[in-house]
């Protein structure tokens, strides 16, 4: 498999777009024509060659540009990456998990040579070569979590497990759907989920936490979450909301196909071996509506989901004002024909 890495931006001139191959493998998140919160957790197993579920950490055509965007965001706001002092060991666990998975699953892109604690890491796409001593922080240019997540797509929350709860005690968060690591760091599972409507009353968080506390090493899990974003902005942080919020006004029926994006998060859960921490990668995939409607089943279904979504969810996800326009635009692609079950194109 050869990936050709694109030169593109997620700010200012916004040159991001998906190739037809990337559209085909997009993780469309709706198995049916309507959507409500649920405990949608399943084993993170490899299946469907070519899909985003094939590898432990998917590397796609946006890799190099996404990493450049992360470096840009961190230079503006270093608080997007934080780790409380007791989380360093979990950072090493994470570095090991990512390096070993990538070297094994993408040997043409990444190499890891290990001689006891003397490690040698080669990241070809980013042009990085690093010799370091495992578990010795002084031999890396950043802490272990920051070092490896500057080279891995997606946000990362690293959760300490204690008192039958998970605590968000470290993270790298530059591509988030409007939540703040700096505000949430140190919170437990129920506290950081506090702003979510309905799900607390539905008992979803109690059941989800129970599941997560029991995730075992070697048996990762996953789920999808989604929202919508005007312009291909990876960084829709609350910190910068006073800059990107106004961009939602630019949306019109004419530019909808290019401006409006479905934003899907592939969220995975891994138990880490030494620290017993849980790592939660949140990988963001963006797709323009013009790209999405090239798959007729997705176009029909997406129209129905957005049209019928409960107002509380549309408000929380931040597109309630633009919803009528989005539905009007999408309706052209829905002839009312039935859709097949499952998320894959027909």
């Amino acid at each position, binding site marked *: 498999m050869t990936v050709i890495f694109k030169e593109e931006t997620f700010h200012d001139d916004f040159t991001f777009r998906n190739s037809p191959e990337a559209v085909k493998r997009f993780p469309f998140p709706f198995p049916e024509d309507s959507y409500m919160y649920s405990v949608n957790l399943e084993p993170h197993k490899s299946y469907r060659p070519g899909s985003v579920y094939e590898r432990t950490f998917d590397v796609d055509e946006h890799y190099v540009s996404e990493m450049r965007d992360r470096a840009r965001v961190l230079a503006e706001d270093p608080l997007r990456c934080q780790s409380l002092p007791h989380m360093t060991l979990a950072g090493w666990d994470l570095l090991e998990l990512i390096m070993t998975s990538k070297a094994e699953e993408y040997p043409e892109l990444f190499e890891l040579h290990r001689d006891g604690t003397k490690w040698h890491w080669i990241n070809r796409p980013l042009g990085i070569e690093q010799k370091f001593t495992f578990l010795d922080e002084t031999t890396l240019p950043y802490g272990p979590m920051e070092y490896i997540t500057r080279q891995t797509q997606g946000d990362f929350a690293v959760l300490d497990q204690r008192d039958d709860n998970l605590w968000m005690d470290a993270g790298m968060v530059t591509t988030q759907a409007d939540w*703040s690591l700096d505000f*949430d760091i*140190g*919170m437990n599972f*129920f506290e950081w989920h*506090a*702003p979510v409507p309905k799900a607390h009353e539905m008992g979803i968080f109690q059941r989800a936490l129970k599941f997560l506390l029991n995730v075992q090493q070697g048996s990762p899990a996953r789920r999808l979450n989604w929202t919508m974003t005007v312009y291909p902005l990876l960084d829709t942080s*609350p910190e910068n909301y*006073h800059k990107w919020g106004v961009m939602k*006004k630019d949306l019109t029926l004419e530019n909808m196909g290019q401006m409006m994006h479905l934003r899907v998060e592939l969220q995975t859960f891994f138990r880490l071996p030494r620290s017993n921490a849980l790592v939660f990668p949140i990988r963001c995939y963006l797709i323009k509506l013009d790209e999405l409607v090239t798959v007729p089943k997705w176009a029909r279904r997406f129209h129905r989901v957005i049209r019928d979504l409960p107002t509380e969810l549309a408000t929380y996800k931040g597109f309630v004002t633009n919803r009528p326009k989005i539905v009007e635009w999408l309706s052209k692609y829905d002839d009312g024909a039935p859709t097949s079950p499952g998320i894959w194109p027909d």
Partner: protein
Amino acid sequence: MLEGTIPSRPVYGALEIRPGRLHLIVADAEGAEAILDLAASAPPDFFAGAQIIYLPKKSGDKFVAGLEQLAPAQLYVGPSYEAALPRLRRVLAGAHMGLQVYLAGTEGLMGQAMLEATQAGIPHSAIQAEHRGSTVRRVQCVHCKGITEDVTHDPFRCAHCGLHLFVRDHYSRRIAAFQGVRVDAEDPGNIPESVERFR
């Protein structure tokens, strides 16, 4: 009852006497009333082992005489939380096993003192908090990170960057503050009328 309670916000109870070798009581304004209520059920030697840090704020000397009558081992009456902070830190640094912490008054005071206590290694199980008096909020601007104290109105202007912020119920114990977010981010200049939500 405090309006807008969501799971990130601490739940405050009513102070009760707990066995301990030293009792540290931190209160502001009407929080003094919680201490006086506590005294009603306190054993005779309780205040001999108690230190009180009290910040009267707008209540002036209304409760000071009452607190003096309790004859605590130490009573400090201070002008502001910032002024009292070195003293609070000193007491916590010298604390050993058996310290009980009692917090009473506004959320801003209790949140900050709770943070100091937990950072000093006092277990949560040895800290109690009772809300009394004003419901004003301590709010952190999510954009500039500056904290505005004693917020009464929603929306309000950030004391640091000047943006007009609405006040969320989302609360961080680590910052001891609610979150403020630009109210006119999606429609600059369109600022709803400010209403007094917290007094």
